[in-house]
């Protein structure tokens, strides 16, 4: 867990791996799949401000907005109800992480996410 804080701003990276996703042609000669031997792990990145928690899941590419102080069992996604807050916190998180768009964090996991959708997840 990495935490950094500014006045009124906290970023939590719940889990993140290092290294680039490497995909290579199947070296086994079976023609039955690709071979990958390293890659970044996914993460839930979040920012909290003004009583709200914005979080972005780099595996699924989905963003959620919560009332930070609501108990976990009552936590509801407010993204559809508060689009301005959603966009504001997303931009803050992008700035904090130094990325132009959070979508770049999802890119290494896009294939995984597509495959999980095929199994009925996400």
């Amino acid at each position: 867990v990495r935490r950094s804080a500014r006045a009124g701003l906290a970023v939590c990276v719940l889990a993140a791996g290092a290294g680039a996703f490497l995909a290579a042609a199947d070296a086994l000669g079976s023609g039955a799949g690709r071979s990958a031997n390293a890659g970044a792990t996914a993460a839930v990145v979040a920012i909290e401000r003004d009583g709200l928690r914005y979080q972005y899941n780099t595996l699924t590419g989905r963003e959620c907005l919560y009332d930070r102080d609501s108990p976990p069992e009552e936590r509801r996604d407010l993204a559809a109800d508060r689009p301005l807050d959603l966009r504001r916190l997303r931009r803050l998180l992008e700035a904090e992480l130094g990325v132009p768009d959070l979508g770049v964090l999802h890119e290494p996991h896009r294939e995984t996410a597509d495959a999980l959708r095929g199994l009925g997840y996400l």
Partner: protein
Amino acid sequence: VNAGTRRLARIAGVGAALAVCVVFAWRAAAGGRPARNVLVVVMDTARADRCSFLGYGRPTTPRLEDLARESVVFEDAWSPGPWTLPSHAALFTGQEPWEIGMAGRDLVPLPSGVPSLPDLLRAAGRATLCVTANAWISPSTGLTRGFDRVVPTYRGAIPGTASENHEVAYRWMAGEHAAGRPFFAFVNDVEPHTPYDPPRDFARSFLAPGLAPGVVQEARLVHLRRSLVLGLGAAPLPDDLRRAIGDLYDAEIAALDDEIGRLVERMRAGGFLDETLVVIVGDHGEGLGDHGWIEHGVRLDRELLRVPLLVRFPRARDAGRRVREVVRLADVLGTILEEAGADAPRGTGATTLLRGLGERIALGRERAFDEAVENAARATSEAAAAPMRRVRRSAYDGRFHLLDEEDAPLRLFDVVADPGETRDVAAEHPDAVTRLHALLPH
């Protein structure tokens, strides 16, 4: 001082020699040389009670029945969670998923500081391969860490097949064997997982005559159309659809069984089966309408946690043994490390499948991850999805299964008398409730 030092050195020397002798004697008693190779095949989403080698009435696993005669069968093996990520976490680390933060509402990958099975076997000199049809076993989740080579056989939303998986695994294993390199191969097969779409011959063998084609088609596509609704029990599951789902699921198990049998026979013909520890294991089960809902991921009922587990030890040691006591997926790691002569990291791998039998409590804990809850709420209603927000915990001692759901009364099932968990007996056995409740994970 010199005499004292010499005496201490002598004692230390004798002690060390004794320790080595004990290790060797224990190894010898345990069956001799360490296993040169290890193969783990996960039957993803396979329920123990739908496998004929564990007593199911339909012939779903004839190949595994044959393999069971030269293996040790664990008849009451339990997973700590109802889906792939936590169950593989236990399998790979020898720890319960909540001990390493992988049973919560956030999707947390395998923590980098936690040693896992491929790490440990690679450190013990094995070449390592992961072949996976399930994307939860991917670099994104950290579960492929430690493998020299990872071969995903899924393509986009199309899951890989056991046939593809086993072809890749066999060719690699045969190559390593020919090169004189000991290996660890891990394979995840998803046939029993949705979509329920078995090969035609198997479907024909298992589908009940008289099922309307439309119903069978609905069952095949249920994961696309209605699984979130039916999976929450938010709509009634018609009897004919339930039957079709169950029949197709059985056919999927049978198709996978056939592929596993072929793989084992190829290893035998290739001359390296006897020097390989073979573990065939399920990661979690599946709801098939038993309690009014389908699929998996949220609840902790018995059909979701009891999994098939069969271990063929090198040279078919202990062939035909049936273990009736409770064992856990977390016990598999210690067993593999011990058989492979690999070191277990401190604090993990302390238990094995064959030690401490009769003393084990299988625990479970789950809370659906946020995205699944939000998806379910969108597809159904907030009220229908609300139960997914609750923490669920369970404890099982071989007879009683205690289910604890946040904001709901404790329920206790006597699975010996009531394997389908249809009758809550908490009021009749308060001592069992108290005893198991004290053991629930926090």
